[in-house]
């Protein structure tokens, strides 16, 4: 560096300083803007456009036919179909999400132990997720056929009464929930496994020293510490579970919700109103109502999950004193 290059004008330095500050302040926003721009285009705009369409009479092929205010919403809420679909959606949702999460947690804690061929097992649970949902549904349909399905054939040969999978409402919900669980349990298990593995080993060592059994460790240490991940899994399962479409749509070859709408979900109803009845205005109203329902239930689930898996590690008062000193003792001896 010569004296000449060091000698820059005052103005030059000030400009550079200003650019520098702009760079530091604006660069982060520039880096995250692609995501938000994309979201605005692909997520935000459709959301607002759907709201706009829901206030108009809009036929699928005929197009826009004018403003109708809240007529579409009133019509949809006045339809028995909407409430039947809502009930079915909630029922399938509960039947799928609760067993899914329980099973996923159990599988995750099993996978976190010292198994042989660990990676094989961990990849294995993800296989159902990789299969195309349509293919899985078609194969499960063979299992759940009323007259010729594998399950009913087995029940018949063992002398038990067959189950009317396509007539009984609850049976159809269980069948659909089974298909959904088959697909998503492994996926959720792996996410929870990652969370379990992130729990510091110190806690487990301490609990072993205290003589805590596996179950006690699981409920008092593991569960509370994977709370953030648990909340994430519950919320995503909620959002996905309330929008189930593939599995119920293909449950019957007629691709509708059953003769008495036994398994008609809200998204299926949306599709029927929008594309079979060609009424996009009403379909948009259903879409926004579904959006609001998912928001409310998602929020509820978030609060429930937060309450169930409290942040504090639950310990007995006597053990608390020991807990406070043991980790310090370990780290002291390590030094």
């Amino acid at each position, binding site marked *: 560096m010569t004296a000449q290059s060091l000698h820059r004008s005052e103005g030059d330095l000030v400009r550079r300083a200003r650019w520098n500050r702009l760079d530091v302040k604006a660069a982060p926003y520039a880096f995250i803007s692609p995501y938000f721009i994309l979201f605005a285009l692909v997520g935000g705009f459709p959301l607002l456009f759907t709201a706009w369409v829901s206030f108009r009479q809009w036929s*699928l*092929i*005929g197009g826009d036919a004018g403003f109708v205010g809240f007529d579409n919403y009133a019509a949809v809420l006045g*339809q*028995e*179909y909407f409430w039947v679909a809502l009930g079915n959606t909630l029922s399938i949702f509960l039947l799928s999400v609760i067993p899914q999460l329980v099973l996923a947690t159990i599988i995750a804690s099993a996978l976190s132990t010292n198994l042989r061929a660990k990676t094989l097992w961990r990849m294995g649970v993800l296989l159902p997720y990789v299969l195309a949902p349509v293919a899985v549904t078609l194969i499960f*349909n*063979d299992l759940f*056929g*009323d*007259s*010729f399905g594998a399950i009913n054939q087995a029940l018949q040969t063992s002398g038990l009464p067959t189950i*009317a999978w*396509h*007539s009984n409402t609850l049976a159809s919900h269980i069948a659909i929930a089974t298909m959904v669980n088959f697909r998503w349990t492994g996926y959720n298990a792996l996410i929870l496994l990652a969370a379990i593995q992130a729990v510091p080993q110190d806690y487990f060592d301490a609990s072993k020293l205290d003589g805590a059994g596996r179950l006690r460790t699981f409920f008092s240490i593991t569960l509370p510490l994977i709370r953030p991940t648990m909340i994430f899994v519950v919320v995503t399962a909620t959002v996905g579970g309330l929008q189930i479409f593939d599995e119920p749509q293909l449950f*019957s*070859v*007629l*691709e*509708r919700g059953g*003769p*008495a709408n*036994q398994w008609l979900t809200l998204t299926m109803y949306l599709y029927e109103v929008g*594309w*079979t*009845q*060609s009424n996009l205005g009403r379909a948009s109203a259903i879409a926004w109502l579904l959006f609001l329902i998912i928001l409310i239930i998602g929020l509820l689930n978030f609060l429930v999950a937060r309450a169930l898996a409290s942040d504090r590690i639950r310990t007995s008062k006597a053990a608390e004193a020991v807990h406070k000193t043991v980790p310090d003792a370990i780290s002291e001896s390590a030094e």
Partner: protein
Amino acid sequence: MKHSTKALAILATMGLGLAALSGCASSAPGSAGGNVKLTLTTWGEFGYEDLIKQYQKENPGVTVEQRKAADANAARDATNTYLAAGTGLGDVIAVESSWLAQMMQYPDKWRPVSQDLSDRWLAWKSSAATDQNGVLRMYGVDAAPAGICFNKDMFAEAGLPTDRAAVATLLEGSWEHFFQVGADFTSKTGKPWTNAASAIGQAEIQGLELTFQDKDNKVVATTNPDVKAAYDAAVRQVGITANMATFGADWTKGLGQNSFATQVCPSWMLGVIKSSAPDSTSWDVADVFPGGGISWGGSYLAVPAQTTNPDAAEKLAAWLTAPEQQLAAFAKVGAFPSQVAALKAPELLSTSDAYFQNAPSGEIFSNRATAISVRTYNGPLSAQISSFFNDAINRVEAGSSNADDSWAQFESDVKSLG
């Protein structure tokens, strides 16, 4: 040093970006050079597989890809979606007569049929596909007269005749007579007489001139006494039906497992039965239909206005629906011709079907076609109301509802469409 590496990095990124963009551009399809690829969308069995190979041989440079929808309803939903989107329909699509009226609500979305073909088809076939200005928009495919397919092995078990002429005499008469024979059969063998009550309901509906909508497209489904009568007759037969709705998974298996003795058979059903139960040797078809003769279904081919190969598409549609090609399709899958010249052709009367015990299918369905006395009027909402009607009967057959509650549900379903 710092500046040159930075400049190098920028240049490299720009270069990569340009390469990627140019790659995208060069992969765009170029239809230069006379090579035309046409998409033909159908469902079920139209019998076009061999015909397409023949067309490609006679027209070098033209490739035809047949896409099959799962069934007619799936094809209708997909057609609605692509019509709304303005692209994706392909070059030639099949349209079923039950939703033809829905498609003809937008006549300018379909390319008109060439004038010199206008008298190729039966008058009633063309008139349904002609718009208000007298322009024919769709190419008629098949006419779909209906007979009764029967399972000769199950008939033999019950002591009923197995010769198809004798079966025709046995089943000749009204629907009540058909149900009576069925009740006797079921009480003797304990097996179902026919596949589903909803199939009976549909068959009865097809025998009426006015069903769910009148000629002004006003919805009369709930006030038309004939519709209620058909419903009542169908649900009364629930004891002698197998609860296997047509095209369902159970029905497809039931065909091969001798689960029911008769099946209402429009001519196109022959191809469906053949492909669903290819190993069965029990099915035959009789020249009879309760209550006279009906036409059930029948399709058209249409060339959407959004096609990118209009001339080639029109040529293909016109060729596929020519009398000679329809006769070939009839021999293969039972798609009975709606073309005037084909109906007079001697090959038609001599066609027989090996799967159905060498039944003279040409003769049978010609007779059935002559026996047709009414044409059902289908309005734009008829297909949707027909689904509700089927659901109403299915509910009673599956046991989820009794007849009165199910009819009340049907009434509220029909009202919800308005």
